């Protein structure tokens, strides 16, 4: 048989095999996400039944979202907490790593390499092992159970990655560019803001998307450091719902919560995929 196959037939068969595998695997990876999103739009009673079929049979409904909104202080409090924490972590991570990356890339000072390695090497220490002291330190600073406290922790956890990323971004910019600007009498900050910032924007995008995803999704530190229910972020609230702290588990409401938590991550990734993958491979290639 194989001998008699013509080239076009062979190519067709290869194509069928390739896309058969690709489509099957893609469906397997996407199905759980789709299932959850579809079920979140079923009417509440239907969502309690096994999700076969996954799409709403009794008509499209936002009942699950209404039920979700009832938990505790109201879903918008928690979504607001999550959004505030993530936005602040993104802004602060970008700011701190922009300054540090520029400092490490362009200046000479005593212990420079030691300090750089100190920041980078914290990636080797699991933060799970310092949660108790973090709790006590934040308490001492009056920041325990505050969103500010958890933002500071998240920014610190992002630092090895964000500092490394931004130093590399600045290293890739030729020195002549800023020397010309300095010769024209521009101040250090003006050079950084007006001239360098536009050149390292791809690095900033990478740092920002990693900071967002990490802080939006983080669970353990938030579970420990936020003790007051009103301060919960979405993952902590939803885990409490799942564990039955708000009574019988309403799986429809849980899936609407999951959809709410997944949506920004998926949207952001699809929009900024290039910068995200760059961040991933920066570590792998190094």
């Amino acid at each position, binding site marked *: 048989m194989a001998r008699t196959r013509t080239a076009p037939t062979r190519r067709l068969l290869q194509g069928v095999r*390739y896309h058969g*595998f*690709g489509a099957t*695997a*893609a469906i*397997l*990876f996407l199905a759980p*996400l789709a299932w*959850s999103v579809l079920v979140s739009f079923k009417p509440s009673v239907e969502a*309690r*039944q*096994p999700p*076969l079929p996954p799409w709403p049979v009794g008509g499209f409904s936002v009942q699950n979202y209404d039920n979700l909104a009832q938990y505790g202080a109201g879903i918008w409090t928690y979504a607001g907490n999550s959004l505030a924490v993530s936005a602040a972590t993104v802004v602060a991570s970008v*700011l*701190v790593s922009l*300054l*540090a990356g520029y*400092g490490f890339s*362009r*200046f*000479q*000072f*005593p212990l420079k390499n030691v*300090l750089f390695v*100190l*920041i980078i090497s*914290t990636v*080797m*220490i*699991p933060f799970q*092992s*310092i*949660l*108790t*002291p*973090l709790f006590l*330190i934040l308490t001492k600073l009056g920041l325990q159970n505050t969103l500010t406290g958890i933002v*500071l*922790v998240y920014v*610190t956890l992002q630092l090895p990655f964000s*500092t490394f990323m931004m130093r590399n971004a600045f290293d890739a910019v030729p020195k002549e560019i800023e020397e010309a600007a300095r010769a024209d009498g521009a101040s*250090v900050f003006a050079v950084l803001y007006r001239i360098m910032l536009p050149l390292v924007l791809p690095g900033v995008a990478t740092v920002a998307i990693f900071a967002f*995803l990490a802080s939006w*999704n983080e*669970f353990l530190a938030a579970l*420990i450091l936020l003790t007051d229910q009103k301060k919960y972020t979405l993952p902590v609230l*939803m*885990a409490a719902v*799942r564990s039955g702290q708000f009574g019988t588990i309403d*799986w429809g409401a*849980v*899936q609407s919560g*999951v959809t709410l*938590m997944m949506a920004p*991550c*998926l949207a952001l990734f*699809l929009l900024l995929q290039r910068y995200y993958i760059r961040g*991933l*491979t920066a570590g*792998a290639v190094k």
Partner: protein
Amino acid sequence: MTDTPQLPDRPPRRLRTARQRRKQLVGLLFVAPALCLVLLFFVIPLGMAFWMSLHNWPLLGKPRFIWFGNYSRLFGDAQFWSSLRFTVYYTLIVTVAIFSVAFPLALFVEKARPLTKLYRTAFFLPVVVGFGSASLLWAWLLDVDSGLFSPAAYWLGLTAQKINLLADFDTTFWSIIIMVVWKTAGFNMIILLTGLQGISTEVQEAARMDGASPWQRFRRITLPLMRRTIALALILSVAGSMLAFDQFYIIADGGPQNSTITAVYWIFSQSFMSFHLGYGAALSMVLLAILVVISVVQLRLLRSPEGM
């Protein structure tokens, strides 16, 4: 990088050093915020964790210094050892499972054909969803009444009744393995892909000309040349799995009968549910030591000369 050596007797030296010193200071100021954060929220807590591990440290009341009392207690803590054993077991199995899915996927998406980008994105999407959301999603899929798997198996006639997958250790464990593979295979695929793309096509072509079969080429060329990438992906996966918490807490709550309590879960439970802060710190130190050893092995592997 050291400072450029200073010539001793150039006339405007004082002026130059003053300017240099100012530039040094500016540099230090730029990195100061990052340094302060790392000191306050990483270095000091790390030292404190060790200090606390030498104390009987209740949530309220005065800590009492007990030397290495917590560490000796740890040897007799059956739950600690079973958690550690379970964590290592989980890490081994999940790492093998992730690789046996991620490697074929990486090979599949390596060559650009129509729709390859779309497939790659599809495989990767679960990665950007948080472990918390993914665990909540799967906790539902695994639910005996409202979930997908056991009702579907029942309706298809595969099981005589709806089976509660979370009531038995093996079904809980393997369900979580499948969930983690689904969630992280795409990540490892991308890491492995960078390694694959780093292999020059000429080498592969030359081997093909010499009559090497696809399997021989994979075994003799691809695998050896990807040693560094594989090591990196492996270590990331091992370190991540050793610290697993979210999925076991959210999906299984450590059950059934505490059989899926991981190391981090046990630290969490000792520190923040029983409030044995000193003992929890000692447990943390042990876990930290294990992970540092893993990281050091990683650096060794990555630096070894036979790599790429």
